[in-house]
């Protein structure tokens, strides 16, 4: 039998500021954070693209032609960035975490291959038609292409989350020894694909993408409307985005609440980290939490924070009705995730979620009063809120992923056992640095592209000062059109 490969890297040492494990974790965390922004853009923008394309082709309304053209360009730029940042990620399963790929290959390889074949190809092929094929295919085929691109984006998310949900609540496998290494062998495909976490995660993630993009569309529209009050297309887009937010934001809060209970059932350690709950026993529900010292930021413990809490409600929610129910605390575990990151990320996500609900209701009230495009205060608020959906999405993702540590596959494989033994700290640090530098340039470029598209749109609409001056941050100066 072939012995397990245990190449140990010889490290020249010049550059090895970080251990291979820490550098690998930072690299994966960083690349997925950037990738997820673009992936969520595709998912969230897909319904907008389908709607604008359908309205444009069917009605010939100039408003929708304008919106389609603008947002398809954003979609295309986002898709390219999603692709170029997504490929390194799938490579990192092999380059940085080969043990994970080996152990879980049989369980995750199938879904990832289905993602490529069923979803990614669909998106890429029909995006080509959507971008370049307006004059080359029939109206019907053109609309269908937009639907297939959107379907591809949502299906892509599904298969990726099949993999991720399995890592959170793994089942449908048994551990066997193959070629001298213990690996997971698939025993029940239905159980392995449809893990308890999947429906929670999929709904929450898709809706988070929709909320993020609705805020982005609302922010861009608000900015353009502010510059050019009578821009009919952008008034339409703003109203549409607010309506979508009005449905999706409250739904996310209700769904998130139920999701948290499911986490308590399946990953009590993660739940305890979300609440900084160390002592096993009755748990309060902390509506708000503030650090009372610097230490409390880096090492939050519920009992040491200033909190606004409902006594026993944590137990009540977790147990489904008992105020005195025991909730396991972090002290029960040998290794805990970085509690501070999980705890504050969770608070930020939830706090932002409530802000979005407030913004949605405010917008709905203005629509009802017929004053949506006239309220400077609302338009400004929406411009400022446009990146916040992404902030909520990322912090939510951190709760999910960092909260699972020290496990890469919950209860089965620890992250530090999954890291490559052939990797040197130097190589890992080198590539981490490259990814950080290049991806920062990438995000900056993406923001510039959005800025140029907006400026071009304003110029096209005839807004007076669209071409003048330099960018002065997110808030423009009020111009003559007001």
């Amino acid at each position, binding site marked *: 039998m072939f012995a397990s490969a245990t190449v140990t890297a010889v490290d020249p040492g010049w550059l090895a500021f970080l251990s291979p494990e820490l550098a690998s974790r930072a690299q994966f965390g960083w690349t997925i954070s950037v990738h997820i922004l673009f992936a969520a853009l595709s998912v969230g923008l897909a319904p907008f693209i389908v709607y604008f394309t359908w309205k444009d082709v069917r009605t010939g309304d100039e408003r929708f032609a304008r919106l389609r053209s603008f947002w398809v360009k954003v979609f295309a730029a986002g898709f390219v960035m999603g692709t170029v940042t997504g490929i390194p990620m799938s490579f990192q399963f092999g380059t940085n975490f*080969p043990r994970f790929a080996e152990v879980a290959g049989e369980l995750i390889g199938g879904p990832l291959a289905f993602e490529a074949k069923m979803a990614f190809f669909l998106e890429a092929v029909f995006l080509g038609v959507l*971008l370049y094929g307006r004059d080359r295919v029939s109206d019907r085929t053109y609309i269908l292409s937009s639907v297939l691109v959107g379907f591809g984006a949502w299906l892509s998310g599904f298969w990726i989350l099949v993999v991720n949900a399995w890592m959170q609540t793994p089942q449908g496998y048994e551990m066997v020894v193959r070629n001298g290494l213990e690996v997971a062998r698939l025993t029940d*495909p239905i159980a392995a694909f449809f893990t308890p976490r999947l429906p929670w995660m999929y709904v929450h993630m898709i809706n988070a993408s929709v909320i993020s993009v609705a805020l982005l569309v609302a922010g861009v529209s608000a900015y353009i409307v502010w510059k050019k009050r009578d821009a009919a297309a952008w008034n339409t887009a703003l109203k549409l985005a607010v309506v979508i937010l009005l449905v999706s934001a409250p739904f996310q809060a209700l769904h998130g609440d139920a999701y948290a209970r499911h986490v308590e059932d399946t990953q009590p350690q993660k739940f305890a980290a979300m609440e900084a709950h160390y002592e096993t026993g009755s748990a309060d529900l902390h509506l708000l939490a503030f650090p009372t010292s610097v230490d409390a930021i880096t090492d939050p413990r519920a009992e040491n924070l200033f909190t606004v809490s409902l006594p026993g409600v944590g137990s009540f929610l977790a147990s489904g009705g008992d105020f005195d129910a025991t909730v396991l605390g972090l002290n029960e575990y040998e290794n805990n995730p970085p509690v501070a990151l999980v705890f504050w990320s969770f608070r930020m996500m939830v706090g932002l979620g409530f802000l979005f609900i407030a913004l949605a209701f405010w917008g709905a009230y203005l629509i009802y009063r017929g004053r949506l495009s006239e309220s400077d205060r609302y338009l400004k608020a929406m411009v400022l809120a446009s990146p916040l959906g992404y902030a909520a999405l990322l912090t939510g993702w951190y709760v999910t992923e960092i909260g699972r540590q020290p496990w890469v596959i919950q209860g089965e494989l620890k992250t530090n056992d999954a890291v490559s033994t052939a990797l040197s700290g130097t190589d890992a640090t080198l590539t981490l640095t490259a990814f950080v530098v290049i991806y920062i340039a990438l995000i900056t470029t993406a923001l510039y592209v959005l800025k140029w598209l907006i400026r071009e749109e304003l110029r096209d609409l005839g807004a007076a000062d669209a071409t003048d001056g330099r960018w002065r941050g997110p808030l423009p100066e009020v111009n003559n059109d007001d």
Partner: protein
Amino acid sequence: MTDWLPVDAYLVDALPEIWFGAVMFALGMYIVLDGFDFGIGILYATLDDEHDRETFLSAFGPVWDANEVWLVAFGTMLLAAFPRVYSRLLADHYLLAIGFVLALLFRGLGPELREQRDDDRWKRYCDYSFVAGSALAPLLFGVLAGRWIFDAPTLSLPAVLTGVGLVAVSVVTGAAFLAAKTDPELAVTLRRYGITATAAYLGGVVVLLASVVLTDAGGAADAVLSRPVAALVVASVAAGVGGSALAARGRYRAWLATALALPALLAALVAVLLYPTVYPATGLTVREAVVSPLALNLTTVLGFPVLLLVLWYFTFLYSVFSGPIEGDGYGG
């Protein structure tokens, strides 16, 4: 599901070998399709005229993204069928693999970002990114493949020649693809590059195989001297020489067909040289490295029909954008 899917036996007995073939097929599709994209990117460096540049970008715009997905298909199919090989292959070639994906990143972003802004300096930077990415990606991927197949160090003849060979064959297919789609005047220049690159490629393959026989790199000498390899080399020479003759006569569509055969034959050559192992350094044969029957059966039942569907809509995509490029592009 397990009621109708065999749990402890492969759906057909040869399924592991079929999957080896399928993975190699995906690799072949990748180097054929993204190969001409790389070629376009490299040839792009020879242009000064803005109109010609835009023509080149229009030729590749609608399809490159979909072409690149074959890399993901190759990677994920390899992971799904041979996880041990996937993980070892990437972990053992860390810097090459990361360098390759970063080159792909620059190749992809260049043309996409260039059109966002009407500024010469901006366009020039985007062009640098496009050309450098297009040249580096096949070079690094080829070096990685050379190390993989021949178990050779990065700076060795087999690895470097495989890298250079992949660059050369990309130039051949890129030139043929463009010649078939652009105006006759530009095609004359393109066929000159194409014929030169064909000669370089064929020469490189012969030198590479000779050096492998002489040094027995990766223990592949016997495999190189086998009949299938001889047949593939003869077929490659025929395709290269025949293609060049067609190019010289101005029959560009026929040239394209023979040019695309070169990377396809190269993928077949890789398959023949590797089999019965998937990655010689692991010492595992296809049967030893493959996943368990249930997993492979499932991936087959769900994946193969989809693969046919993918091939169908690739045909659709290429038919929509077939024929010469009109004016400054496809519109849109």
